[in-house]
């Protein structure tokens, strides 16, 4: 996404978010503004509070302090359903599919959810819904497996179906929790490219948690680095991913030493599926 297209006005604004589980601070004063139309990547070590941020923004967890504004309106502590209605969608680290339904039925249910499910006697798979569902699956390259049951899919397809369901609601902001985890390394780039194309076409603003630095580098406009419930750094990927603090904390190399980064063992392309 080029800078020219971007509208710099803020779509989502989090101020001073705090949440602790037991003694562990999952959010310790998070301030973050997400701009309209941007792709913002969140990186950081395990347990830094990345998923917690998504959970708070989508109403799954209620912050103990701070506020979240979306499009000028305060949405702090609203229920997930109310937040979905305002145009915020999400996908999950572990894909949340209806496992006893087919891929097509999953998509159709998501579409029906947008249009309203309260019709007791119209079949779910009526023509109008099927057409839209197939179009949706087509866009994500899932049409070939539309009649497979969701629990029989491989992880990559499950991830895509999960995101497809979130986009079926036509959100304006989409939060994705590790969209590429579980996707085989060889397929990862193709999956992300598909995803980026679909989201760009629909003019969706995206926030995504990601462990793969290549994906972050290629697909984000800005990167936020999470560490122990705080934002350690925020900026364009070219800058942030070269910051020595970030390298030490997140990527695990002592300094900007090319031999260390490409040496033996899991290196910065490391943690393959994570």
């Amino acid at each position, binding site marked *: 996404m080029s800078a020219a297209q971007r509208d710099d006005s803020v779509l989502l604004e989090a101020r001073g978010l705090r949440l602790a589980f037991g003694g562990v601070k999952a959010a310790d004063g998070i301030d973050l503004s997400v701009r309209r139309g941007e792709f913002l990547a969140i990186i950081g070590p395990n347990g830094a509070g990345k*998923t917690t941020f998504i*959970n708070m923004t989508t109403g*799954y967890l209620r912050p103990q302090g701070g506020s979240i504004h979306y499009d000028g309106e305060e949405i702090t502590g609203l229920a997930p359903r109310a937040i979905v209605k305002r145009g915020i969608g999400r996908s*999950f*680290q*572990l894909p*949340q599919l209806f496992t006893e339904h087919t891929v097509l039925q999953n998509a159709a249910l998501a579409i029906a959810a947008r249009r309203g499910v309260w019709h007791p006697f119209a079949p779910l798979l009526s023509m109008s819904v099927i057409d839209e569902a197939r179009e949706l699956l087509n866009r994500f390259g899932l049409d070939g497996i539309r009649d497979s049951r969701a629990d029989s899919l491989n992880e990559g397809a499950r991830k895509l179906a999960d995101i497809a369901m979130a986009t079926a609601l036509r959100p304006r902001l989409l939060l994705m*929790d590790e969209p590429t985890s579980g996707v085989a390394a060889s397929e990862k780039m193709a999956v992300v490219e598909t995803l980026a194309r679909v989201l760009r076409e629909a003019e969706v603003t995206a926030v995504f948690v990601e462990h793969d630095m290549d994906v972050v580098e290629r697909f984000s406009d800005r990167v936020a680095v999470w560490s122990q419930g705080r934002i350690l750094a925020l900026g364009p990927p070219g800058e942030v991913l070269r910051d020595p603090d970030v390298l030490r904390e997140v990527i695990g190399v002592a300094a900007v030493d090319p031999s260390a980064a490409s040496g033996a063992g899991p290196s910065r392309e490391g943690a393959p599926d994570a």
Partner: protein
Amino acid sequence: MITWFDENGLLLGLALLDGLAYAALVFMVSVGLNLVFGVLRVLNVAHGSFYAIGAYAAASLGGMAGLPVWASLPVLLLAAVLVGLVLGPVIERILLRRIYAEEPVIQLLVTFALFMILEDAQKLVWGVQPVSNDVAVRWLGTVDVPFAGDVIPFTKYQLFLLPGVALATLVGLAWFLRRTLTGRVIVAVTVDREAATAMGIDAKKVFLLTFTAGAVLAALGGALASPTTSLVPGIGAQTIVLSFAVIATAGLGQIEGAALTALLIGLGRSVAVYFAPELEVVVPYIIMVAVLLVRPQGLFGAAEARRV
């Protein structure tokens, strides 16, 4: 208020004493049900039948001719252990072992079928006429309990023995689960059956052991109840629904919670017996609904760990 107390003080005292004894019995049964559910993940509808059969067996054994009076107490224990050790392993091995992988509704129905079978079996063995044997209660005699400037004569059996056994069970079970290896093994299986197996734990043995222990506890509850009441068909059904109420109110997998809830429900019910007899059966459920309205996961239950 004062005049009410003058008129009803004795009745209230009696209700509290009765409630305490009753709560002790309810605890014995529901803690076993809870333990079995925690480990096997099967809600055993036939658990109440163990209670009933324990009670009938105790009454029959205790009624044998030539038994010295002092033996009336050990006989209760003996009956419970016999019933639990015979029924528990047989049922676990033959029936439950086949259904651990099934859906909950199937498991419920299997134990429901078992309940129906055991219900008729009781009628075949002990008939439908009331059976009673209160030698143990009479042998221990009564004690005068001072209450609100008055005295209430109450049986020692109900005042000391029942709460004593319940308390010993509570403390013993909590100690066993936390401090002994077998206890920790049981807890590990409760948390994660497969991981426990990979750690070298024989989950099948743990299931057998736990189910048998649950059966003994239920039978012991019945055996201890037998000298205080006359036994009729249907006591098993009554007990199981009450135990369901206790564990749902307490929250699943709670031992101390089950004890406090049993006390709450036992006292509530016995107060109702004296002051609003038509509400006797309803009170435990009113308590349960009231609690779950405020705390959907039960009084002491932890909210489900969320994972997205």
